[in-house]
């Protein structure tokens, strides 16, 4: 293993329709680390997540996003996922007529790819897939009927979030961004989902939890916390930063900072 960080964002300036939303973001995440990215509505958290995942509508003006030392910005979203990256969407998309199980089978096989001949991952057998799906659904307390339901169609807000984590559990990424995965969950669901995430965290994968509430962080403990304001990471620290934020609010943080120049 080299000591190249798993994931790095360097001086990222990016936006949409010519408008700059991210104004120089730097972030480094190593294997085994859980980071939390906090910040008020509209500060650019989801924008960062989309750009990292490869949303075609966003433009990058400057900077790099490195995964295992490789710049991923030129890659398609599918390639990035195949490399082991994952994004749990804040607003998952509905795909009518496509069942969760069929989709997941294709996704799992796409990510695993062909047998690499080096003892790496390979295509999953149908029986093994079903077993795995059943197991992960039980873990996340998702009713079996969801396997045959169409992807996100008619899912409640909370069900969508759980389905995102189910996808993550099936795809076994090495680096996952979870964008507001717990907002909109009731107390029980929050517990199930965060327990699920904690089980998936095997100590070697890395996670970036995006949230504007500190609440989640009582359930999933981050090693590092970053605060994003107006497209920049303005403060970074340990878990105590989250509590400080909760006490002070974003306004105070903003005013404590010297105006960005």
């Amino acid at each position, binding site marked *: 293993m080299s000591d190249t960080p798993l994931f790095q964002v360097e001086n990222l300036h990016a936006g949409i329709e010519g408008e700059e939303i991210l104004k120089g973001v730097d972030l480094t995440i190593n294997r085994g680390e859980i980071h939390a990215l906090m910040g008020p509505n509209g500060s650019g958290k989801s924008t960062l997540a989309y750009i990292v995942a490869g949303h*075609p509508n966003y433009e990058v003006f400057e900077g790099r996003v490195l995964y295992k030392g490789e710049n991923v910005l030129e890659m398609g*979203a*599918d390639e990035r*996922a195949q490399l082991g990256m994952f994004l749990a969407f804040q607003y998952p*998309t509905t795909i009518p007529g496509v069942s969760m199980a069929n989709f997941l089978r294709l*996704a799992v096989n796409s990510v695993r790819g062909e047998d690499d001949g080096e003892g790496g991952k390979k295509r999953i057998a149908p029986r093994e897939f079903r077993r795995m799906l059943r197991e992960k659904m039980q873990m996340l307390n998702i009713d079996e009927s969801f396997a045959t339901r169409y992807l996100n169609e008619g899912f409640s807000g909370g069900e969508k979030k759980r389905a995102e984590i189910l996808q993550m559990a099936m795809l076994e990424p090495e680096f996952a961004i979870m964008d507001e995965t717990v907002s909109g969950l009731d107390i029980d669901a929050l517990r199930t989902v965060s327990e699920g995430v904690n089980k998936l965290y095997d100590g070697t994968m890395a996670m970036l939890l995006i949230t504007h509430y500190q609440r989640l962080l009582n359930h999933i403990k981050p090693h590092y916390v970053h605060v994003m304001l107006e497209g920049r990471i303005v403060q970074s620290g340990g878990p105590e930063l989250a509590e400080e934020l909760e006490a002070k609010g974003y306004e105070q943080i903003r005013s404590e900072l010297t105006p960005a120049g």
Partner: protein
Amino acid sequence: MVTKPDIDLGQYKYGFSDPENYHFKSRKGLDEDIVREISQMKGEPEWMRDFRLKSLEYFRKRPVPTWGGDLSDLDFNEIFYYVRASEATGKSWDDVPEYIKNTFEKLGIPEAERKFLAGVGAQYESEVVYHSLQEDLENQGVIFLDMDSALREHPEIVKQYMGTIIPPNDNKFAALNSAVWSGGSFVYVPKGVKVEIPLQAYFRINAENMGQFERTLIIVEEDAYVHYVEGCTAPTYTTNSLHSAVVEIIVKEGGRCRYTTIQNWSKNTYNLVTKRAAAYKNATMEWVDGNLGSKLTMKYPAVWLMEPGARGEVLSVAFATDDMHQDAGAKMVHVAPNTSSQIISKSISKGTGRSTYRGLVKVHKGASNVKANVVCDALLLDESSRTDTYPYMEIEEEQVSIGHEATVSKVAEEQLFYLQSRGVSEADAMSMIVSGFIEPVAKELPLEYAVELNRLIQLEMEGSVG
């Protein structure tokens, strides 16, 4: 309506000449001589010959329809109207276009079947299946034959029903078919008999299966049921550029008929088909129709709801890729009160493909308490692809409930991105979205057809077909 020739059927019992002794030479173009020759060669009774000749007259008088697809390149003089099976199968595999061979390959169609589908080989061996099926059906009194045999073996039934649902003068192409028809299926299901397994046209041993001018007649007696399945998703290659079939179905009181077709004609073909059913008291008629391929398809399966309680349904999928025009839809004619109908049409246009939904819901005066629902959804895959919707309504009655919904959508970038963010390639994501789009219809298909249909869409998405 057709004038029923007033002849004694018995007279024709021995009136069939031996087809083998007759030497028919195929030639292009259509005239009375050709029609007479076809009839004579098949050894048909006089009334059928007259039916053909009368139809030829109608065909000549009728103008080429100017609505619908562009038929201006269709040259009636450049077409073989009758080709003997032996000649048709005499062509060689080398003549079959490369893209069709590739598709067979990719669909995993067995070698023997490929030649048959391409129209260059004898029918592949399904004889064993066919014979045990035939025995089973015969025990139930079900008749399942090709139309030519039916005319020989059951002339009285054929004569009673043929042309009653679609009279030869109905439209130019129905007239043409009535004049030169050959092959097609004949199904008769006696009262109360429910045929358990779907009747598949390819079980029938007849090289004229894939003929250009098939004539199909299905009669479902009271409280009987049959599911008839025809076609296949692999491209059907024909050197002849015109396919014009007629399908007539009668569903009597309490009966139910489902007719499933998937067609994938080669890209040089005009596919101009007239399909119509009459449903009587409490009867149900369902058309499940898939149109792929062809240069132009014009096809609007219809149900005439003749008596109270009758129900009609059309589920259709059309897929137009480069240079194709799928002009498809449905017609529901509510003649009687308390009848209901449902049309679900899904179309996909890719590249320069164009799909048109053209449908009619007609409610006759006095047909109160009619319920009709039309849903047509179009999916465009490219900037250059095109779709049009013509949902005609002719409602002459006040007490009716008519629903209509039409959507046109593009494959949303958000959907593609979402699937791709899970590692799925763009082509796979695209075909998954398209498969999902047609799922409401695909799930009504026999499983092997649904699987093949999805596989075909996948091939189209990979850009590896055509």
